[in-house]
């Protein structure tokens, strides 16, 4: 299949089959559009976007696994970042935020004319617009790591610990370490209750802690946390030792 240079490459992301089929029908009647892939949730949308590099994503807001707002934020790490048009049946808060920040959206049921206009003036989301959507987002379900031009999604429940290094955070999963450019304090607030601050520079997921051990050495006794699946241990700071007693 040959595509003209002017053809707009589009990715559809919606969890409901009829909603996707409706968009397919509408786009079929619009010239110079081509659907490169269809995703059933936000996570799939990011993966398919990385694979097919669409210019534009029609992104539903309420989807399982990862919602559209979170997916849009992660997608900004793709190079080039796709243009995003949100689609929603009804979400008063999101619509208000979109209107205030000139973010493109389509209300379901979507009209052909409205879709055509939106395609013409679609533009990339600006960081400022993404910031405006933050209050609408629930806790993220994934962290996104930008690595060698690729975006890697790490499910929060797979993360064993997060440790602050000089400029980056080290994110450890059972398989390997990743580098992330975010602040530990920010993550601690966002995922309150899901991680324990065992040390000033380290957040650990309690479900991966298998026990505590006293490490004698360097003169002073130091408690460390033993972790499931990985050999490393995490030092427990003196101030956090009450956590050991309570566990």
């Amino acid at each position, binding site marked *: 299949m040959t595509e003209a240079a002017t053809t707009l490459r589009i990715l559809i992301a919606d969890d409901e089959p009829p909603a996707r089929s409706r968009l397919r029908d509408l786009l079929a009647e619009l010239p110079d559009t081509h659907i490169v892939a269809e995703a059933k949730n936000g996570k799939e949308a990011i993966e398919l976007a990385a694979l097919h590099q669409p210019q534009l994503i029609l992104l539903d807001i309420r989807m399982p696994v990862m919602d559209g707002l979170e997916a849009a934020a992660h997608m900004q790490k793709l190079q080039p970042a796709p243009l995003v048009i949100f689609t929603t*049946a*009804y979400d008063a808060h999101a619509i208000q935020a979109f209107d205030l920040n000139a973010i493109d959206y389509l209300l*379901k*049921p*979507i009209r052909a004319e409205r879709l055509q206009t939106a395609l013409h003036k679609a533009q990339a989301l600006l960081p400022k617009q993404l910031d405006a959507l933050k209050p609408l987002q629930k806790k993220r379900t994934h962290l996104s790591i930008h690595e060698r031009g690729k975006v890697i999604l790490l499910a929060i429940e797979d993360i064993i610990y997060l440790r602050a290094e000089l400029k980056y955070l080290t994110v450890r999963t059972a398989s390997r370490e990743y580098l992330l450019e975010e602040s530990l304090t920010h993550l601690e607030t966002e995922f309150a209750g899901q991680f324990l601050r065992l040390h000033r520079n380290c957040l650990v997921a309690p479900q991966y802690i298998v026990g505590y051990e006293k490490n004698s050495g360097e003169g002073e006794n130091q408690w460390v946390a033993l972790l499931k699946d990985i050999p490393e241990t995490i030092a427990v700071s003196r101030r956090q030792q009450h956590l050991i007693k309570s566990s």
Partner: protein
Amino acid sequence: MAFAAVVLSQTFAEFLPTLTTLAAIVEPILLLSMVSLYLLFPLLNQRPYWQGIIGILLVVAFISAAFCLLVNRYFIFDTILSMPRAVLLALIAAGLVLYYFHLMQRAYSPAIAEARLQALQARIRPHFLFNSINAVLSLIRSQPKRAETALEDLSDLFRVLMADNRELVPLSQEIALCKQYLNIEKLRLDERLALDWQIDEATLDALIPPLILQPLLENAVYHGIEPLADGGRIIIDISSKHQDLLIDISNPYAPEKDHHSGNKMALKNIKERLQLHFDLEASLVTHHQGGRYHVFIRLPQHTQP
């Protein structure tokens, strides 16, 4: 509230023996109370109910105390009046009258309960309406027959939602409505939505407030099924036990993915409607167990006479 003082005089007249001296003591207190309450009426009427009550009692207490002081000081009567006793009697009389009014009001204004019932009528999520219309639109070209059925179901559902829903309906009618509702949801969610109906035949004639089940199923879909990529199963279990109708609706429980504010509203609404219909005889409780979220309803099992 000014009325309180008028009736005050009657109760007092019956309550006290016919002694004119006593009447002469009581009447001025009553008249004064009446006049001052009448004058204060606009002021008291603006206040919340309990503040009004306190206001009335204070006025009555003050007037009876002042009158006693006056009488005792100038020896108008040859007996000395006990002030605490007079104040207490006046307060008791006023209290009785107020309680009487309160009962009267409750007994004679079912209109208030009616109005509340009407205000509590279930409301469907706009989210559902627009998504459903979108789904129907997608069917029109490819499967016009299915689109027809879906629109018929949708209109039946909205007819009930917009109707006057104060009368009890047979459970079978509510179940039929729920099935139409779930047909529409099935259109959108397809194999992600699995259903399990376990209904005791003997309960089908039982009378329940309309739109008790449908909002619960809507919650189950919205909070239990939609957040799951692979969907899940909703179990509807209806049985009867010791003259009670037991309803148990459960869905997969997704703790982190949940946002429960909307859910609470619907539950509170159903709880209040159950209470207005059955008072303490009905109950609604929720809990999660074994990865599922349950809503239990118990209500007295009435059937059409």
